[in-house]
């Protein structure tokens, strides 16, 4: 039993999705509307929570101070192409398993009262949960790509069906960008596969500079396999995680997608994409990384600044969230590219914290949008549209306060640990970038507190007077996010101990 925990974690949500698909309508309570039978919803939640509990057990049972893969499961899948079902946990992905495990039950709970096609939505969330677990745990790049490319279609449907006015175009842009991204990554995989002899997809066998010095010929030119596949993978993943200038679909989706879907898109897809990037580039391309590190850091710096500057100009909570996410991704990339142990540990840590803070931001902005009817918080002149919510609904104000603090990296919140580690790690190599990071933090302080002032403080507007505080359900699902952020900020030691040994081992091959 305990040897198959990862498989159980991946399969439970799939089972849940199947139940959602085949549950008879009379039992699921679809037609009676939200007040009817709720068996379908409960089953979705139970499956999702069950998978999350096994995931948490998995991470909790991991030994610290060990760089190797743990709880690994390996079965041959397609032997003649050396593809295997190879799953395992180490410091690089353990935190993301926690992130995925926490967020999906919350998303299902957040869409509890969805009126249209609730079963479809929950089923798609469950499929997403399973495939993200798979992506994060897979130790075979074919398997990883397999799970990763499953994730793009549920998003298409989630945006296309439950989105806002222009959902068709948003969904279309997201699928075009995702399938182009997947095509590029797939190309890189095949290139890598045929570059080594014997051909293999296994990360363990490919690690340790197996690709060093390999070249292939295209149209008469000799190209380095390592460099070309690194570029393909970077661009392919940048199309899935919003990296400036490829973020057009992301801001579009931000405006149209339902809040919960956008949380899944920004708080889960983005960290997972960065994780894949880190995993592949640290283990496969030690030859390319030293010079590519500069490049990663500069892309990160551009994202930081672009995200910050664009966020200042936003009047709505949703676009604001998109650009906060963009800026945070920039920060993480600076850590990834620093190639120093503190910076990379910080980046891994910040991946998870980014997920939590962006998800929290999305959750409370979703609640506000639901109550107020739209998510604009100030008009074009910068005057507040809502205001004084804090007196009517102190719980929302408190939650929002914690999340804003974490995004800014206040001491005591999760963002502080991640940000400071990354700053320490990259200071020696890239002092200029750090000045930019400081500037962008100042910008963030400005736009986040403007947002906070417009929404929660000041004179109550007409809309805010009827503003109801958090219900029990909302409190329940916001609690894990807030607690998670505070825990990450106040007691990061156990988590950092998980991450550090793996990062040190990976970095030792780069240098």
């Amino acid at each position: 039993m305990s040897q198959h925990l990862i498989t159980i974690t991946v399969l439970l949500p799939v089972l849940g999705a199947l139940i959602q698909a085949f549950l008879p309508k009379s039992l699921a309570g679809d037609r009676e509307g939200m007040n009817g039978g709720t068996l379908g919803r409960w089953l979705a939640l139970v499956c999702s929570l069950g998978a999350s509990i096994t995931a948490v057990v998995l991470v909790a049972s991991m030994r610290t101070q060990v760089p190797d893969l743990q709880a690994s499961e390996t079965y041959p899948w397609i032997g003649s192409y050396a593809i295997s079902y190879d799953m395992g946990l180490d410091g690089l992905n353990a935190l993301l398993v926690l992130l995925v495990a926490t967020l999906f039950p919350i998303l299902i709970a957040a869409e509890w009262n969805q009126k249209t096609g609730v079963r479809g939505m929950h089923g798609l969330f469950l499929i997403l949960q399973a495939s993200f677990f798979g992506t994060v745990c897979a130790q075979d790049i074919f398997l990883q790509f397999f799970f990763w490319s499953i994730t793009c279609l549920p998003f298409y449907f989630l945006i296309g069906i439950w989105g806002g006015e222009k959902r068709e175009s948003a969904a279309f842009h997201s699928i075009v960008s995702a399938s182009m991204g997947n095509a590029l990554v797939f190309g890189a995989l095949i290139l890598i596969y045929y570059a080594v002899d014997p051909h293999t997809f296994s990360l363990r066998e490919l690690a340790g500079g197996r690709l060093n010095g390999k070249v292939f010929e295209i149209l008469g030119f000799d190209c380095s396999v390592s460099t070309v596949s690194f570029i393909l993978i970077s661009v392919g993943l940048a199309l899935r995680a919003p990296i400036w200038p490829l973020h057009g679909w992301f801001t579009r989706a931000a405006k149209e997608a339902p809040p919960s879907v956008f949380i899944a898109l920004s708080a889960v897809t983005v960290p997972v994409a960065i994780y894949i990037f880190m995993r592949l580039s640290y283990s496969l391309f030690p030859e390319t990384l030293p010079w590519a590190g500069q490049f990663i850091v500069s892309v990160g710096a551009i994202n930081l600044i672009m995200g910050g500057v664009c966020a200042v100009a936003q009047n709505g909570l949703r676009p604001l969230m998109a650009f906060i996410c963009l800026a945070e991704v920039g920060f993480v990339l600076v850590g990834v590219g620093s190639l120093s142990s503190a910076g990379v540990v910080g980046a891994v840590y910040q991946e998870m914290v980014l997920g939590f803070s962006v998800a929290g931001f999305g959750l409370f902005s979703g609640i506000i949008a639901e109550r107020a009817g739209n998510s604009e918080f100030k008009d074009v002149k910068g005057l507040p549209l809502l205001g004084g919510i804090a007196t009517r609904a102190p719980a929302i104000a408190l939650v929002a306060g914690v999340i804003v603090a974490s995004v800014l990296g206040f001491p005591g919140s999760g963002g502080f640990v991640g940000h400071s580690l990354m700053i320490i790690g990259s200071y020696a190599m890239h002092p200029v970038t750090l000045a930019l990071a400081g500037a962008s933090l100042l910008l963030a302080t400005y736009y986040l507190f403007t947002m906070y002032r417009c929404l929660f403080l000041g004179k109550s507007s007409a809309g805010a007077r009827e503003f109801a505080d958090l219900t029990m359900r909302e409190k329940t699902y916001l609690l894990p996010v807030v607690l998670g952020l505070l825990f990450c900020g106040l007691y990061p030691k156990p988590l950092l101990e998980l991450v550090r040994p793996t990062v040190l081992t990976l970095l030792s091959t780069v240098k």
Partner: protein
Amino acid sequence: MSELFLIMPEIFLFLTLTFVVIGEIAYHGEQNRLIILTSLVGLGGALVQTLIAYRYGATEIFAHTYTVDGLSLFFKLLFIGLAALAVITVAHTNEVPIERKTEYCALILAGSLSMCLVASAADLILIFLSLLFLNMISYFLAGYGKTSVKSTEAAVKYMVFSTVAGTLLLYGMAILFGVSHSLNIYAIHHALTANTLTHPTILIIFMLVFAAISFQLGVFPMHLWTPDVLEGAPTPASAFLSVGCRAAGFAVAIRILIAIFTQNSSSQGQWQVMGSVDWTQILALVSGLTMAFGSLLAFRQKSAKRMVGCLVMAESGYLLLGLVVLDQVGIAAILYNLVIELFALVGIFYVLSFIFDELGSDLLVDLRGMLGRAVPECICLVLFLLCLVGMPPTPGFIGKFTLIGVALRHRWPVLGLIAIFSIAVSTVAVSKLAYSLLGEFKAAQPRALSFSETQVSGVWSRKIFLMSLVIPLLLIGVFAETVLDLAGRSLGFIFW
């Protein structure tokens, strides 16, 4: 006598055909179930006989005109399975009027018989005749919706193209016979190895023969019929034609191109081009063009059947990759993909035929909201479509991977790139179709109460049939290794 044992599958098919025809004459429009049952039992018998024939090993019978080897038996299994699925499809559809279903079964049986002949033929005349037989039947099938203009147009297009292709094939074969004084393709191989032909002669022969094969495959120079016929023909017939004609084409292509135009290379399980004409370049060009055209055209379509037709065309392009490389691994990849296609395409056209019965249209705009009305059918449709274009988690992904992988290994990086991008474009096209099934999900909600009235799914026989397509499909993905191995073993005792 032993020769008769080896053609038992064909004899079974022929007997079943006779019974069905007699039944049609005797009952004429009545006792449909009995006749459909007869066809299924006969096909089941033929399937068993094919499996038994595996025991005998590769042999040539009837004065070296007829080969029974791994390749032909593999294709026979495919064709008989296809015929069985097609018979069930037509039993479930309303597109073919009930009194004409028996006739239709007879045509399907005749079609599968002709395909089995194509798969085994090793003699130029026999190849030509069996292809003619197949195309004649296909022509009837394409025009089976007599009253529909599109169906008539499809039949005429099919006939014109097949006539041109047949003529070209005949010219090519005539020249081939002239230079080698033999009709048996293996004898031709020996004759050509003994004295090599001049550059222009072999080029002309190749172009003529390949033009004919390209019609059968629905690839570049003769690709125009594919979308038209698959759109115009009655949907169950489209299912049969889309898999059957192309698979028969691949059977001929593998046999003729490998046997006549290649010679054994130094490395095990590979071939090299015979003579001075490097025709793999032509094949590669055709493959690339077909993939790109097919997927881009699919992207622009407004009708579901036509879109699938374009995807099928692109599919032929991908499969050609397996032939370009002149490697047994490539051929095994083709066979693996054909098995996947068998289930995926029959499934797609089965669901489309059901939708057509309900709506009387297959335009994307008319499909709106279908998912709310027939949930299992539409989920299966999306699954089959994803499988056709090769998206994970379906086995189609592994199929495409084997093809692209083998192309890259043999230094065709550009083809691999085109294939990957065509897959991306096809995915977008399929998403469009899938999205139109969802349609105005929100707008449909106000009349949610009337959903139960318009709910059209729920017939158990249909669900069972869909499950019988989905489960093998998923098993092919999970046990990909075993299926690939079977395909490889079919090549193991092939008669080159």
